[in-house]
């Protein structure tokens, strides 16, 4: 798995530099590095995050995810422990979400 990641460019915080280079295999490897084994439920969030990025150029907020998928906030924290917004963006190959001011 680490072989896959050695071919991918990351920024200092571990977010992919080029979201277009993302593949589901890379997602699995990034997730594994973060201690997460991907399930279908993770993929619901990741696919939504990718679709949002394609439409708007940004990663979705937690509220976007919970309102537009069937994943609730509690489950989201179980799937991506700690910071689900950042972690989901990372596994989805997107840039670090910019906190709105």
């Amino acid at each position: 798995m680490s072989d896959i990641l050695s071919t991918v460019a990351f920024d200092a915080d571990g977010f992919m530099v080029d979201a277009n280079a993302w593949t589901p295999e890379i997602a699995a490897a990034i997730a594994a590095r973060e201690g997460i084994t991907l399930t279908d439920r993770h993929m619901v969030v990741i696919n939504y995050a990718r679709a949002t990025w394609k439409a708007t150029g940004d990663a979705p907020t937690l509220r976007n995810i919970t309102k537009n998928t069937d994943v609730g906030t509690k489950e989201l924290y179980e799937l991506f422990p700690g910071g689900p917004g950042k972690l989901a963006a990372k596994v989805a190959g997107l840039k670090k979400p910019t906190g709105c001011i």
Partner: protein
Amino acid sequence: MKTFLILGGGTAGTILAHNMVKKLDTEQWKIIVVDRDKTHYYQPGFLFIPFGIYKPEDTIQPKQKYLPRKVEFVLSDIELIEPDKNRVTLTEGKRVITYDYLAIATGTDIRPSEVEGLLGAGWRKNVFDFYTFEGASALGEFMPKFEGGRLVIHITEMPIKCPVAPLEFAFLADWYFTKRGIRNKVEIVYATPLPGAFTKPRAAAVLGDMFKKKGIHLEPDFNVSEIDSGKNTISSYDGRELPYDLLVTVPTNMGAEVIGRSGMGDDLDFVPTNKHTLQSNKWPNVFVLGDAANIPASKAGAVIHFQMEAAVENILHHMAGKEMHAEFDGHAICFIESGYNKAALIDFSYDQEPLPGKYPFPGIGPMTLLGESVLNHWGKLGFRYMYWDLMMRGINVPMPAKFSMTGKIK
């Protein structure tokens, strides 16, 4: 006769009304302002009410007093906006207004019902907001009776109106309890969904240091799951539970409900808007001013002042069938009241985070950026007069719209 309809007569709606009266031929254009509340609130003043610096009545004026005479003011809630049909239905008498141009300035409000338990038994007993006139006034009555314990200041989720206000609340609380001689009996905790004290790195570092100096405990990455009024605890999704004696929370901020009802908003009922032109992304004859827009700028009065020039120019160009080339740059300026008659000042834009240095304030002199000073504090208090006597009367305020690097240190 054509109609220019403005929804909302607060900061943005009032300044826009003054501009349109001046710029449009009122023989040809009828300008209507609709608002459900006859009171205009000086919202920056709400922060001072809990600490007894302002009385509640210091923050209110009649809305109509500040609207130009040539404007028709309609006091009513809005039932529905139908942008595809260019019409708006009011609740009062079910009046229907058909417009040629629509300006949405319906602002943002708190939605405490978004957090489980927030509206429980403790609401406005020992759980308060200070973003509404009622909340700030209730807290103003509670504070002198608070004799010590754990104060938790809390932000639910971003974006919020005036993102520095909760920081100011923390600094003022430190000063207020010190002045009362009970600071040693009060623990101050600041729980935020952000990874630090503020969104932008340079300012977060400076403000984080101020927290340490003032003995305010920072609880970062705190995403609230529930408030339990029985146990007096606030919990996060990652399993933290903070007990409180007094909870001062900033509930979820959302746009007006009519925006959601009319299918014009995003997940938070803010209207998707071009961040440079301030035109709606979907309807060319609809412009969105102030807090109602989803643009990634601060939701604050100074931002409205800075965006107005570009918005008005673009509206007029669009009416004339010309290309819109005026661009709002996301410019924001905020005083951060820090207690002990001092304040800090930050000045920033879409592209430039707050930096230290000096802000060349015309007629007053250079003001310290990203550092505390007494002059900044007087600037903050003086802003109330500038707001009512200049901004709300459509008189030009000597603060250039465009962000500038002058005086700033990289």
